[in-house]
């Protein structure tokens, strides 16, 4: 008897590798290919190999300066965001006081706001003719300042990115086993020693995660440097400036430099993170009992936290207020003299005003739908094929997360500005399709990761059960997998939609007048001193964020 040993191929793996290869090819064309084209364009002049742009980049001091500024402002952003976010997290997680829940949720709100909205809100509040300046003037203080340069950028970064530290730290604190604390206390640890020796080491993974996220976000940040930078150029604004000046070759070199910087930072952070001994991931246990200070303390805490939350919410409240200020009514007064719904009426009554809103919604909608479908496909094939192909798929989906939006904008512009269909290049620049495409690429990590997480939690026997009941592959997908994945997919889609609808960084490179999105209209309103209109667009984006938050909240409740 010969033992004809068959190596098993699991259910679903059959045919998965060809499907996976197909999806991988599509993703490579969408995500990897444009970067490759940009790389090639950086070392070419008029179609032949040349390092002239690269050497120019190397020679120019302002390029190195921009690179350096990108690095140090990102590091400073991490430090500042941590300085705000971590103490807030301890306060809201460890102490008990009236209004803790509501304030704790409010403090996390800025996370879902498009960056440009935060930036203009800051401008209207703390800018040289902003709310605060006017108030001070009205009170007789003659101080004047300019909200510009590195300080302004860092202020906005700290303000919008502390939320990462806040959320990560709170989640980790909630997980840390109270027993650790009790054990440490029983062993005679002083509170300070306990913090240094027990709590912080256990928080390490969360802090590292928040630091990485903040660093990458700051490095890719465009709105703040663009609005507040002035002469202070970082890589993202440098790239867009070169592009607007028509110096394409240099823009391509800069783009590659920024992409390399981002990837290097990612690798370095991963290395630092894995080199140190692991922390408290996955710890679960009794939730640490919240300290319940005396009544006086609790009320003091409540007041302090309300004030903190108020300060953090102030920019958005300003935006809301300004959206009710009709054009040309607020000149030198401390407070706006007239408030009405005029801006909203204008916005919805004038087709040209409404257009950006409609544009943003349909483009974000199309991009989100495609991103969800592609993310789901990629996640499914990644898990089914497994092995190297599976990891490649996962990597391709995640890549746009690591690469700054400016880089992708330039790369897509480079790739889709010529028509060479046999090389996979189409003339899409100047058509309505380029922005949805850009949004799609940028949304892939969000939807792909959501689908991947959902699929990993899905019991594989459910799909097998469907197969055993005679359901062909398509019915298994539509009648079992998608309905069960719906919460994860909806959450991913909501976030993707929000990001796309508020996108500024890729839009400014790729938009055309007829397909201009909200962010571009905000910018031109600003230029035309139509503050109220700009604020109104901002408020609409905020409303969208709030809606998304509701979806998220619902998902958590399930």
């Amino acid at each position, binding site marked *: 008897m010969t033992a004809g*040993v*068959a*190596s098993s191929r699991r259910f679903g793996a059959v045919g998965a590798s060809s499907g996976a290869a197909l999806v991988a090819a599509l993703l490579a064309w969408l995500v990897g290919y444009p970067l490759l084209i940009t790389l090639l364009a950086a070392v070419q002049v008029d179609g032949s190999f040349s390092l002239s742009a690269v050497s120019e980049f190397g020679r120019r001091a302002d390029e190195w300066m921009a690179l350096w500024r990108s690095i140090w402002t990102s590091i400073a952003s991490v430090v500042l965001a941590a300085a705000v976010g971590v103490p807030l997290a301890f306060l809201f997680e460890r102490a008990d006081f009236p209004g803790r829940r509501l304030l704790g949720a409010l403090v996390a709100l800025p996370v879902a706001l498009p960056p440009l909205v935060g930036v203009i809100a800051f401008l209207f509040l703390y800018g040289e003719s902003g709310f605060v300046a006017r108030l001070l003037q009205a009170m007789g203080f003659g101080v004047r300042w300019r909200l510009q340069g590195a300080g302004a950028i860092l202020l906005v970064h700290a303000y919008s990115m502390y939320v990462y530290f806040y959320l990560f730290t709170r989640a980790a604190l909630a997980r840390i086993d109270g027993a650790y604390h009790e054990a440490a206390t029983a062993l005679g640890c002083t509170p300070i020693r306990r913090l240094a020796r027990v709590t912080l080491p256990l928080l390490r993974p969360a802090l590292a995660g928040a630091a990485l996220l903040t660093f990458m976000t700051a490095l890719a940040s465009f709105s703040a440097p663009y609005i507040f930078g002035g002469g202070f150029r970082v890589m993202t604004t440098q790239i867009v400036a070169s592009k607007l000046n028509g110096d394409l070759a240099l823009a391509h070199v800069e783009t590659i430099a920024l992409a390399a910087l981002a990837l290097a930072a990612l690798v370095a952070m991963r290395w630092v993170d894995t080199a140190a001994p692991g922390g408290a991931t996955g710890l679960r246990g009794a939730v640490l009992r919240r300290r319940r200070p005396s009544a006086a303390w609790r009320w003091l805490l409540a007041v302090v936290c309300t004030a903190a939350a108020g300060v953090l919410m102030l920019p958005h409240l300003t935006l809301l207020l300004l959206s009710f200020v009709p054009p040309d009514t607020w000149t030198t007064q401390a407070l706006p003299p007239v408030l009405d719904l005029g801006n909203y009426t204008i916005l919805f009554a004038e087709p040209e005003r409404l257009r950006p809103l409609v544009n943003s919604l349909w483009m974000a909608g199309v991009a989100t739908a495609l991103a969800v479908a592609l993310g789901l496909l990629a996640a499914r094939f990644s898990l089914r094929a497994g092995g190297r192909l599976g990891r490649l798929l996962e990597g391709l989906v995640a890549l746009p997360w690591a690469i700054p939006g400016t880089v992708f904008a330039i790369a897509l512009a480079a790739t889709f500005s010529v028509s060479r269909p046999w090389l996979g290049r189409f003339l899409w620049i100047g058509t309505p399709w380029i922005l949805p495409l850009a949004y799609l690429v940028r949304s892939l990590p969000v939807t792909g990761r959501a689908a991947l997480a959902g699929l990993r939690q899905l019991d594989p*026997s459910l799909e*097998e059960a469907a*197969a*055993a009941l005679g*359901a062909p592959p398509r019915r298994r997908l539509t009648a079992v997998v998608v309905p069960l994945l719906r919460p994860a997919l909806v959450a991913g889609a909501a976030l993707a939609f929000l990001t796309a609808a508020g996108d500024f960084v890729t839009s400014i490179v790729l938009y055309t007048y007829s397909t201009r999105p909200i962010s571009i209209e905000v910018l031109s309103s600003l230029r035309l001193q139509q503050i109220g209109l700009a604020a109104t667009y901002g408020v609409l984006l905020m409303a969208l964020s709030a809606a998304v938050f509701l979806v998220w909240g619902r998902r958590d409740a399930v």
Partner: protein
Amino acid sequence: MLKIRDLHLAYGAVEVLRGIDLDVERGETVALLGPSGSGKTTLLRVLMGFEQGSGIVELRGKRLDGVPPHRRGIGLVFQNYALFPHLDVRGNVLFGPRSLGWDASRCEERLGEMLELVGLTGYERRRIGELSGGQQQRVALARALATEPDLLLLDEPLSNLDPELRERTRQQLADALRAVETTCLLVTHEQDEAFELGDRVAVLSAGRLEQVDVPERLYRTPATAFVASFIGRSSVLDAWPTERRGGELRVRPLRADAEASWPVLAPTERSGSPIEVVGPPGGEAPLRMWVRPEDWDVEVRGGERRHDAAADGSGGEQWLSGTVADVRFAGALSYLEIVVEEARIEVALLQGRVDPDALQRGCAVRLRPRSGALPVVFPDRGPSG
């Protein structure tokens, strides 16, 4: 109905199925019994088409190679039921019929039949999360039967239930399977379950089928040492073959120079080389003998009868002498643990067969296999037989 020949499967270098041959007749239920990790689930998965093995699998005379799971016409009840949590009872039961494109009226009719079969009429709109474990099990059965599969596979259908519920559900399952007359292959690692639900029982060990037979024969005439150990309880004793008379083999128990020599059932097929009868001297015992607890004759030894056993007329000392080490009362039976030399022997006595006052711990007894009950022997080849 189902025919399996020389089925092999390996996960990488690990061979999980090592040449399975099995036939299941139409309308028959075969219980697949084996210890954990023996490959029971894997065999079902291969039949289902979830894993690809090598060898022949035929259903109703058609080879299943390359037929995808959803076209095999095989139903499966998962160990964890795998009910769709986003659908209600009705949605679950009708999932199969709808997949096959049955029209609405046929679906409704089938739903009614299935729910009546498993006693869940009126539960159509219940969510899966709102059902008890036993009800979920019944929904899983109804769902698998709804498409009228040619073959129904059940993977430990009762193992997720607590013992008390298991008993009751087992009865309902047996009734339901009998009612629909479906051909079934049912995996379990509980002997009681296999014996009650299976027309025949297939014993699987380390990827090989050791024996496929009706429960009675598995118990009485196990084909391998594994089956002898795995099915029921036995005391296992060293044995030396003394003589072969016709089909009958006699062995000396415990010691090569023992006076007793008992008739045993010699292994037939599978065991390889015929058993050689060797002389008294010799170190390791060449055979091992399995004796069921209820197959012993036990007598209390009176002082004067200590060395005199000729009275039983068998011509020679056929008894072993031992001491009662433990007595356990268990309702219809009492279990004795008797120490004979180094060996510990378990004996089950029907209540009333022996005076309870006479059989006490520390009491001297003698014992031998009941006449008519032939112990089985297999060559001693280590624990795996």
